[in-house]
Structure formats: structure tokens, C-alpha cells
């Protein structure tokens, strides 16, 4: 690790005042320290945000607000989350290991960096790590890479499980700026596609701090998260699907589908949701949803399997939640 200053403020204001160029906020650190050891990330200051009182889960009007430093295990275990947003509990429990979930935070999980092996290898070219250096993944060995939302500059996959469920649940990120201002943004505006600037992954500005994630009332009571991986536990997703549906009179009244293991960000496609709405569940409908989801997929060598696998999982999940 590059040497850094370590600060442990006890208010959000102090934390923001502490932040300057080259500062990283550290919550759990399970991803940040991993990458700092490899010197993929090299902040010169760490501001510890674990003592800012951001570790509470509080009900709002009809939704819930989750503090930025709530641990993944505590979020999965929260009785309200288990009852009304079970897809989130399920996604969390499908990720990482109990030890990591006990440490990793909600905001940190949203900001999790890619597992692309070329990104993690400081000897390899990577536009995300070192803008303009090229992309060693293209033409290399592909497995845990994206097929949706890619650009010629970057095909890195967003690895989170939690964020996939958050995406289906229309989560909003509460962000505090240095002037004390607070803004809220939905995940569609929070995450950026790589395009020509894959090193800029979110719309979070330098010096801004995520203080909470807000979930509105769940858009559906039929929820499921399904993940396929290469071993039975403790592995990143080959593909995953989060589904939040509401049924009325045998028809799908609303559908929110989100996908992991396929996109450069936790993936959601409005056309998939729209296609399903007001329709009666059927195999033909679900097959169509899979076609729409993958219509723009870039199936590079080694990633061809992602299309049929994601489609099969989507169909199975839809079958399950519409039953």
C-alpha cells in the first residue's frame, strides 16, 4: 500500500472537510483495502466513516432509509427488510462470505469495483485503472466480464449482488456535499456507462459522501433473487437476476427486473419491464423478455454462455414469481 494519512472524524461535516483530492472514504474496506494492497487504488488519505452515525436503518413514510455504513449482514438480517424487501436480503446473503458481509457496508457495496483480472493487475493495460492505457481484457481471457453496456474501452463487469436487488427496488442514493448540501439520485443516474471514460464509474463528485440509501415502498410483493456461480458458495455471479413483481387478476401489474453478471453496471432494462406489464405470464412472454434483454449483448469469445444462461435464469425467476 502507498503510505496514507488516516483520519477518523465523528461527524459527516468533519469527514467532508477532511476530504481532498486523493482521499478515499473507508467504510468496511473489504474492497478498498484489497485494491490498495495491489496498488490498483492509491489514495493518500483515508477518512474512516464508521463513526459518523450512519449505521442506522430507519423507516420513512412508506419506505426505508439505510445508513451508508450499515453492514451487509445487518441489512440482510433487518426484520423490516426481510419482510418487505426480501429480495435485498436474498441478494446480500448470496454474496461474498459471512465474514465479508459482517464488514462490508451498504455504500461500499454500491461502489464495489470490478473483478476484471486485468484491472486488478497493475502490470496490465487498463483504461479504468490508468485512463488511456488501453484494455488488456479485450483479446484476453474473458469470463467475469460484461456483455451489456460495454464500450471498446472497457468491458468490466459490476460484481455486486446487493446493487442488483437495489436496482430492482428503485433505490435512491443520498449524497452529501462539502457545503452541507444533500442531493438524492436514483441508481440509473448514479451509475455511468464506461463509454470513453471507464475510470469514472458514478456521478459521485470528488468530496461527496454517500450517507444513505433510500428504498421506496417495494414496487411488488413477489420478489426473488437467483444467482448462478461456479461453486456453491463464495463466488461471484456468472449471472444473477432480481425480480420484484406485482400481480393483479392473473396479470403482471408491474415488473422490475435487474441483472447481475452481465452488465458494466447493475443492469436494468426498462423495455424488459414494459414488455411484461399488463401481460399474462407465459413461456412465450418470458422468452420474449429474454430476447429483449439480450438484444444488444456483445458476446465476445468466452462470454457466449452469458446470453442463454441469463435468459434461462430470467425465465425461471419469472416463472417462480408469477406462479
Amino acid at each position, binding site marked *: 500500500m502507498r*503510505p496514507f494519512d488516516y483520519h477518523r472524524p465523528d461527524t459527516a461535516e468533519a469527514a467532508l472537510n477532511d476530504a481532498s483530492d486523493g482521499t478515499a472514504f473507508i467504510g468496511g474496506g*473489504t474492497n478498498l483495502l*484489497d485494491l490498495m494492497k495491489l496498488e490498483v487504488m492509491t489514495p493518500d488519505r483515508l477518512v474512516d466513516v464508521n463513526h459518523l452515525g450512519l449505521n442506522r436503518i430507519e423507516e420513512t413514510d412508506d419506505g426505508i432509509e439505510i445508513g451508508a455504513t450499515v453492514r451487509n449482514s445487518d441489512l440482510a438480517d433487518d426484520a423490516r427488510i426481510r419482510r418487505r424487501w426480501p429480495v435485498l436480503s436474498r441478494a446480500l446473503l448470496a454474496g461474498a*462470505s459471512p465474514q465479508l458481509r459482517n464488514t462490508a457496508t451498504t455504500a461500499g457495496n454500491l461502489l464495489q469495483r470490478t473483478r476484471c483480472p486485468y484491472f486488478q493487475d497493475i502490470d496490465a493495460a487498463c483504461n479504468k485503472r490508468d485512463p488511456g492505457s488501453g484494455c488488456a481484457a479485450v483479446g484476453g481471457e474473458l469470463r467475469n466480464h460484461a456483455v451489456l453496456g460495454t464500450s471498446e474501452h472497457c468491458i468490466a463487469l459490476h460484481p455486486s449482488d446487493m446493487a442488483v436487488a437495489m436496482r430492482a427496488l428503485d433505490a435512491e442514493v443520498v449524497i452529501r456535499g462539502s457545503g452541507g448540501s444533500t442531493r438524492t439520485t436514483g441508481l440509473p443516474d448514479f451509475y455511468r456507462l464506461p463509454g470513453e471514460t471507464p475510470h469514472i464509474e458514478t456521478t459521485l463528485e470528488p468530496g461527496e459522501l454517500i450517507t444513505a440509501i433510500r428504498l421506496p415502498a417495494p414496487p411488488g410483493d413477489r420478489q426473488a433473487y437467483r444467482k448462478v456461480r461456479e461453486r456453491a458458495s463464495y463466488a461471484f455471479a456468472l449471472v444473477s437476476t432480481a425480480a420484484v413483481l406485482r400481480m393483479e387478476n392473473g396479470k403482471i401489474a408491474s415488473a422490475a427486473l435487474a441483472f447481475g453478471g452481465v452488465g458494466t453496471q447493475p443492469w436494468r432494462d426498462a423495455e424488459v419491464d414494459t414488455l411484461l406489464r399488463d401481460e399474462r405470464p407465459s413461456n412465450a412472454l418470458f422468452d420474449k423478455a429474454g430476447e429483449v434483454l439480450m438484444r444488444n449483448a456483445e458476446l465476445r469469445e468466452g462470454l457466449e454462455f452469458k446470453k442463454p444462461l441469463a435468459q434461462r435464469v430470467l425465465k425461471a425467476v419469472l416463472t417462480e414469481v408469477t406462479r
Partner: protein
Amino acid sequence: MQTTLTVNGTRHQLDLDPRVTLLDALRDHLCLTGSKKGCDHGQCGACTVIADGRRINACLTLAVMHDGAELVTVEGLADGESLSPLQQAFLDHDGMQCGYCTPGQLCSATAMLEEVRAGRASHVTGELEGEMRLTREEITERMSGNLCRCACYSGIVAAIEEAATK
């Protein structure tokens, strides 16, 4: 940086480079080498310790972030010469070969049994709400953050099953 760690009931005052991980503080600075470094990246679980009641990977956290924390490592599981039920069960069922993952398995299992008692669900739990039953499937899922390359999994699970009843 001045940091106070209470490990297995003993208070230690350390002056640390902020880069020192909790694991390296234990192993290299306090000479408590029971906690193991297998990967240094949270990918094997050999470094599992119990920090303020929760099992964590000591390699992926900084020692300075645990100022004032109460830690339990493998060296603190036994009561003097008397082994904990889990430690004894690991011997009875040969839940180890090379022994390098063993401290992590033991700390992890110790905390895991508490999590089950507290009603925490796992990936394989059928219903998120309600009483947790410690089936074999539940044990293996909940212990999957601890790799064992000797693959003593059968012995480890048998040991946990036995200790859970005590």
C-alpha cells in the same frame, strides 16, 4: 499511530503504521500467530477472528480502525487447558490436516453458532423469518467463507454438528 487492542482479554497498546492490517498487527506485532495469512485478500478465511462479537477477515481491515475493540483469536478459545467444545470436537473428528485453516475455521464456527442462535438467515435458509435450524446444508453454506485445501470438510462439519448440541 497509537492504537489499543484488547485481544483475548488482554489490553495491548501499539504504535502502528496505519497500513498495518489487523492480521499483521496480531501476527507480527503481538506475536499472536494463531490467526493465519492464507491470501491477504479476504478470499480464504484463514485470518478469521471475532471482533466485537462478529467474525471478520482480519486481513481486510486496518488495525487502526479497531482502536478500542475487543478481539478473540484462536488463542482465546480455550479456557486455560480446557478446550472449547468446538476445539475438542475438531480433534475427535479430525477436522484438520495441515492445520493452517484451522484457527479460522474455529473462530468462524464459534461465531457462526451464535449467529444461528440469534436467528440470522443464510443463503440456503428456506424462510427468512422464523427459527433457524442447523442442518448440514446450513452449516456448509455458513462455513463457506473458510477454505480448507486439505478438504477436511467432512470432519469439520461433523465436529460442528456435535459441538452445536453442547
